[in-house]
């Protein structure tokens, strides 16, 4: 006599079929509930964008110190704007082999922008096609740094390419390795903190002399990328960007 005993290669007994069907339905509904709960609990990744549908063209002055940037005149009464230049991959503007020129340069690239900060980076796909020396004289001088005093700030060191829109989210523990690789590849390190009003504040990190972090200084910084840290340094405004002069050996974990 066959009772509710199951053998895979024989017909399943009716009594057992009802039970198994119930279990399968419960499992599928349970899995669906897990998917639904897990996906709706995801934190908002911010309003950054990396618009790969259309390139924008920006003309300004090319600088490589502290990092590869294009400085363009600001609107009347506003400071000059500075665009960080990066490649399509995890490599900074230094990898673009940009021309050394005092002439105005036009760069065509995909913009990376986030909320009120607007477009902060340009991603250059091909230096040959997207970078053109105009032959016209410089249209925007290097902005003069304005010292804002020493400060100790809590926040996170991020790579601005991912943070401002390439990754979504481009911060935190899961993104730590990616951010570290980006900064190791020459994308300028940026410090994300909050200002006195609780609004996000972004500082480009440079060494105590105002130079870009490279070599040993960069390697001292890398282990702290994406971790909760406390930085102490000289704040300054250069164009529309804030900078923080730090000694990477003095970074504290929180």
């Amino acid at each position: 006599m066959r009772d509710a005993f199951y053998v895979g290669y024989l017909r399943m007994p009716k009594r057992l079929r009802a039970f198994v069907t119930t279990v399968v339905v419960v499992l599928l509904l349970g899995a669906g509930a897990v998917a639904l709960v897990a996906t709706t609990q995801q934190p908002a990744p911010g309003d950054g964008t990396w618009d790969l549908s259309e390139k924008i063209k920006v003309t300004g002055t090319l600088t490589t110190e502290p990092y590869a940037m294009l400085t363009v005149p600001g609107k009347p009464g506003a400071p000059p704007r500075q665009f960080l230049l990066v490649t399509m991959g995890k490599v900074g503007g230094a990898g673009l082999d940009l021309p050394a020129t005092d002439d105005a340069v036009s760069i065509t690239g995909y913009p990376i922008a986030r909320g009120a900060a607007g477009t902060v980076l340009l991603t250059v796909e091909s230096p040959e096609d997207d970078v053109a020396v105009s032959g016209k004289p410089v249209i925007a001088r290097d902005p003069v740094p304005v010292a804002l005093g020493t400060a100790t700030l809590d926040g996170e060191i991020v790579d601005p390419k991912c943070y401002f829109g390439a990754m979504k989210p481009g911060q935190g523990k899961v993104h730590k390795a990616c951010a570290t690789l980006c900064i190791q590849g020459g994308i300028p390190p940026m410090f994300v903190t909050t200002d006195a009003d609780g609004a996000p504040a972004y500082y480009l990190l440079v060494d105590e002399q105002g130079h870009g972090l490279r070599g040993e200084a960069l390697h001292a910084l890398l282990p702290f990328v994406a971790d909760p840290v406390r930085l102490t340094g000289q704040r300054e405004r250069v164009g529309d960007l804030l900078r923080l002069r730090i000694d990477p050996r003095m970074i504290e974990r929180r």
Partner: protein
Amino acid sequence: MTHAYRAVQWNKHKRTYDALIAVGVVLFIALFVVVGLLQHEGDHAAHPVTLILRATSTCAITLLTIVLAIGPLARLSPRFNPLLYNRRHLGVSTFLVALVHGGLATFWYHGFGVVDPVTSVFTTNANYLPAEGQRWQSWLHGFPYQPLGVFALIILFLMAATSHDFWLKNLSPRVWKNLHTLVYLAYGLIVMHVTLGFLQDDVSVVYAGLLGGSAAVIVVLHVVAGVRENIKEGQDGIANTEWVAVAKIDDLEDAHGKVVCLKNHERIAVFRHGDKVSAVSNVCAHQNGPLGEGRIIDGCITCPWHGYQYRPEDGQSPPPYTETIPTYRVRVEGRDILVNPEALPPGTAVEPALIHETVGEAGDA
């Protein structure tokens, strides 16, 4: 059974089982990604790759939880055996979903950089040891969680790659079983991977709750099943004297078996088939399934896990199959079934004890 190897010995149940896995996995990932895209719209939406990474990780953990729950559930009630029957396909599916997650994460977070992506997984975050004066909470927060996932994926790969009966036969059931017990290590590594990775970010406690719930289900089911088996074992534990009474004839339905545990933890399956009684090892030669919980079908003891069959009189699978299990001498005295606890070599013929001769005399046939 192992007469000739095929990639998969398909039957209706396996096809249904696999179709349900495929539909379940596709629906799970689609639901996660689509709802995730709708949740934060426009510029606030998470990147689709991020959503796929999260969907595949959640799906793989859900699958693994089910895989690990099926074993104890089947020990608690044979009604769960249909889920156990094709569990290896569920395991292979778990590996494939986890592989998509691991491969995509390596490509996405470690690709396009100045370091080889695979090398980067192990070296880009090198905070394996705490820095001087670093608090342990801070160290754990920054600990490289990716290698934990890689090691778990390697274990899942080894299990998936050796899931076929070809490997079971050639590695020997013992080695195969030990290898596949590593799934618990893989699960532990995955729990650590998530705890030291995603859960370190500023995310909802719901995720810790889901992961803790998964672990709780697995631990509780294993403990309950283990305790129940230990209790049964304690009740059944019979001294290994020369002949031991293991059951009453009236306790055994026709075509049914009974598991008897000796003091040395050896288990014997005693079966009644018509007016005969036979005793064999309780351990199936295929995957150590509990034969005593099986039935006699077409004259053969049939394992409840995968349907492997053995003749009760000699512990041999019917031709052309070749599996053999140890047999035991058995006799009937009055209403008692007695077994000699000395196991005979696998496949040894033993004359079944006849019930009618003795019980009939007692007027009980």
